[in-house]
């Protein structure tokens, strides 16, 4: 005889403001088999949980329904409380009265009635729940970090320093990411490469880290603790062991006019190249799309000049199959290309550049060795305009969100310019200055007050060229919306930070969610900012949303701790919500007829056909069997099974049927 305890939570006033919790508890209390129905202000609080634990003992409960928030929020909390009270945790269900009822409806009788329906449904379900034991699965203690920017580097080092193996995958020829392109960093103006390159070298030399550059994730299978990742190591056309990194090939390559990605197209590179002098690994790759040999079948100069004969033109791509326990995604961001703003003339006028291009101009290792020179004629710009929010916070043309880093780097750019061109004038058009962060606002004030950067609050309507000058037409909203026109020598657009190319594709391979801007989605915006919806996959850095360096690094360390925590045990327990094919006594063995319909629907290859043999070894019966270690509990096999021989624990046919009936009928 079932004895169900129901606990209706007020959630402060979050639920009780629109739902009559007293009435819910009272009505539910009259249902058959409900031994206790009570209400409390905060069920998730310590006294609230104690209430459950005591009730389990006092009323000898066989099931518990906590009617509170979303089970996606607190199901683990209450299942744990039940376990502590002596009840199998899988005999606890939650009725979602907050997200699905009180927060989305007005205060009236219908809302309370709906709440009663929701609770009654869970009462009927929990009656059919069975006590389940968690499944133990082994953990492969190797982490994979996807992306070798500052976030990936930080995560990899932290995990490796905890004593775990790390495999780092980077799709470009060198690690370092966008941070390696930056000149100086806010708010301290220390040189980006000076603080980054030691970390890059540490990654390369760390005994626990294996680095694969020029490599991309091909496919991901499996689940937390037991991922199987295929990685495509693109052919570098190079024997990396033989190569000494002398660089002779790169100087002799006849192809020299390829826009340099690292310099944001502001410099040129050969077809065999090392992306930048401090690259890790410091070995060249051949860019097959531009190499004369690959295009025309002739050349091979690099092969001829190579002193160690390390060039391999016939090198194929290599597919690595890796066993991985946890994955940190740190694939970073990209900037929105400025040509979507035709009125700003990016692409038409050479002296309009984006923020990353300015970083290269200002960088001592950049194409101008750190001198701020106009791309068109190499002259020092006397009058420079920075446009913040070029695309950000502009749902009409760009993106709705704030890219977060632009206010700060624009202040930095203006400052760097003023430090290098003392007589020059710097103007910044901005919407608002968002400089929350340690020493951030002071930094912006310094730009304005000490370096006399002219901040103009208003947007720019158009930029056009006349007489070799760029006419920037905008408005000053603090001066009564007066039109402003500035004759500039150069314009820098702080274009929006957007998701990296390929993010959507990677998210689908990893089966993690992403938002409408293709940024990876965290499991909870506040309380699980590092986790994804897929257990064992974590996020670090700007692949989640645009972030500055300190934020990326903090999150990367956070992700590393999550991985280390996972690796701290040799087995992990998994929810036993798996599919099961029924078994009965011989000669039937199972009602399954082995039609095999379920096999192809399983995304985890968890279904196989089991053979039952007679004493003489003859196969007398075949039936499907599900490997509970592989099954992830999607239940698709359950729905396609015609003879209803498969059922899903936790979402059994009986349970879901009872839910439908209970939801629609008053008792």
């Amino acid at each position, binding site marked *: 005889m079932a004895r169900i305890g129901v606990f209706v939570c007020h959630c402060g006033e979050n639920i009780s403001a629109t739902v009559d919790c007293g009435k819910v508890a009272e009505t539910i209390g009259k249902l058959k088999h409900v031994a206790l129905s009570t209400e409390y202000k905060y069920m998730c609080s310590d006294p609230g949980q104690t209430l459950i634990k005591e009730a389990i003992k006092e009323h000898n409960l066989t099931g518990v329904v906590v009617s509170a928030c979303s089970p996606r929020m607190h199901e683990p909390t209450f299942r744990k409380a039940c376990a502590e009270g002596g009840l199998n945790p899988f005999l606890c269900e939650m009725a979602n009265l907050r997200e699905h009822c009180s927060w989305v409806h007005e205060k009236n009788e219908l809302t309370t009635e709906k709440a009663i329906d929701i609770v009654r449904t869970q009462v009927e379900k929990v009656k059919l729940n069975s006590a389940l034991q968690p499944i133990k699965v082994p953990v492969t203690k190797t982490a994979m970090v996807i992306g070798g920017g500052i976030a990936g580097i930080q995560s990899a080092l932290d995990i490796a320093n905890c004593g775990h193996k790390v495999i780092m995958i980077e799709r470009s020829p060198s690690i370092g990411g966008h941070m390696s392109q930056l000149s100086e960093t806010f708010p301290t103006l220390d040189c980006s490469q000076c603080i980054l390159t030691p970390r890059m070298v540490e990654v390369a030399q760390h005994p626990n880290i294996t680095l694969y550059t020029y490599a991309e994730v091909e496919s991901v299978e499996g689940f937390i603790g037991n991922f199987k990742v295929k990685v495509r190591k693109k052919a570098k056309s190079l024997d990396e062991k033989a190569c000494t990194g002398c660089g002779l090939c790169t100087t002799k390559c006849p192809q020299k006019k390829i826009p340099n990605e690292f310099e944001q197209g502001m410099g040129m590179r050969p077809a065999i190249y090392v992306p930048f002098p401090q690259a890790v690994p410091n070995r060249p790759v051949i860019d097959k799309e531009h190499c004369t040999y690959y295009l025309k079948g002739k050349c091979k100069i690099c092969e001829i000049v190579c002193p160690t004969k390390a060039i391999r033109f016939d090198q194929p791509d290599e597919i690595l199959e890796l066993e991985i326990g946890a994955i940190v995604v740190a694939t970073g961001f990209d900037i929105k290309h400025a040509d979507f703003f035709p009125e700003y003339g990016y692409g038409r006028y050479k002296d309009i550049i984006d923020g990353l291009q300015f970083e290269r101009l200002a960088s001592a290792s950049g194409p101008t060795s750190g001198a701020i020179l106009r791309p068109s004629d190499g002259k020092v710009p006397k009058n420079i305009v920075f446009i913040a929010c070029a695309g950000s916070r502009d749902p009409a043309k760009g993106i709705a969100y704030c890219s977060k880093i632009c206010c700060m780097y624009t202040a930095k750019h203006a400052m760097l310019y003023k430090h290098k061109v003392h007589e020059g004038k710097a103007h910044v058009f901005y919407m608002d200055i968002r400089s929350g962060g340690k020493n951030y606002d002071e930094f912006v004030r310094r730009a304005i007050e000490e370096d006399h950067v002219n901040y103009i609050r208003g947007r720019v309507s158009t930029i056009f060229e006349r007489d070799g000058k760029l006419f920037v037409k905008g408005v000053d909203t603090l001066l009564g919306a007066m039109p402003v026109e500035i004759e500039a020598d150069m314009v820098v657009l702080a274009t929006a930070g957007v998701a990296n190319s390929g993010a959507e594709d990677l998210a689908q391979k990893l089966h993690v969610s992403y938002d409408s801007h293709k940024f990876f989605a965290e499991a909870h915006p506040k309380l699980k900012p590092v986790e994804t919806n897929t257990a064992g996959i974590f996020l670090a850095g700007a692949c989640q949303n645009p972030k500055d360096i300190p934020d990326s690094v903090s999150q990367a360390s956070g992700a590393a701790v999550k991985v280390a925590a996972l690796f701290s045990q040799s087995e992990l327990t998994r929810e036993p919500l798996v599919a099961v094919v029924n078994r009965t006594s011989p000669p039937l063995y199972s*009602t399954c007829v082995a039609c095999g319909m379920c096999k192809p629907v399983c995304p985890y290859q968890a279904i196989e056909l089991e053979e039952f043999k007679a004493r003489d070894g003859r196969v007398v019966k075949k039936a499907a069997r599900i490997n509970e270690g592989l099954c992830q509990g999607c239940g698709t096999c359950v729905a*396609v099974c015609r003879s209803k021989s498969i059922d899903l624990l936790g979402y059994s*046919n009986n349970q879901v049927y009872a839910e439908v009936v209970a939801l629609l009928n008053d008792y």
Partner: protein
Amino acid sequence: MTNLINRAKELLENGTVKVVIGYEAGPTGLARPAFITDPAKAGKLIYDDRCVQNLAVYLTKAEVKNLGKMAIVSTLPVMRSIMMLISEHQVMGDNIVVLGISTEKELLDIADIGVMKGYIEKCDLRNPEKDRETLAMLNALTPAERFAWWQKEMEKCIKCYACRQACPMCYCIRCTVEVNQPQWIPVQANPHGSTEWHILRAMHLAGRCISCGECGRACPVGIPCHLLTMQLADQVNNYFHVHAGTSDNMTSVLSTYEPNDKESFII
């Protein structure tokens, strides 16, 4: 016919098969299934217009299967049934000798499954013509009219499950209607129970029905329930470009997918 008898006799005599599944004339003159194990009795076999039943239904029956290797008199629907049964691991291809019968009632030389596949590919795989006409008529009605039409049919249903028993594809040892935890289909033969039974049966045959029409023929109260599975057979071909029973390793339509499957109703 002589060819068929001779072939059956030969197969039994030289021990290639243990049983020949075919038709014989019953006492009232109607054709009935025959299971010939003795070569001397091969002469009882007939094949003419009376022989319409889909014999493939017996291939999965233990009483027949346990006799040993089987030969089966096979028209196109039987052959397609065999293909489906092999695909679904219910019979083994090398355990069956197909005594193919052409539309001209001639004995075909079907040496193996590969030859049978070639033969099936050349055939008209659409639903029988008279059923196509009825389907067209029904599809031209309004939904309300169709509802009324089917409800009139459903009222006749006595839930005898003859439609299920006659179908070679309904080989489950436990049918959903026999599941009572939960009771998916109301047990009673009433409008509700009958309607849901026929929906269930048709859905379970989606992508598997080979359009033999046996279910409709078997119905003692004359419900044209074969039209339900045939309509879905049409739709399977329409959406997924598949005819059931055309090869011995068919993947089930409802357990596979193409990412670009087209539909227009999901918002």
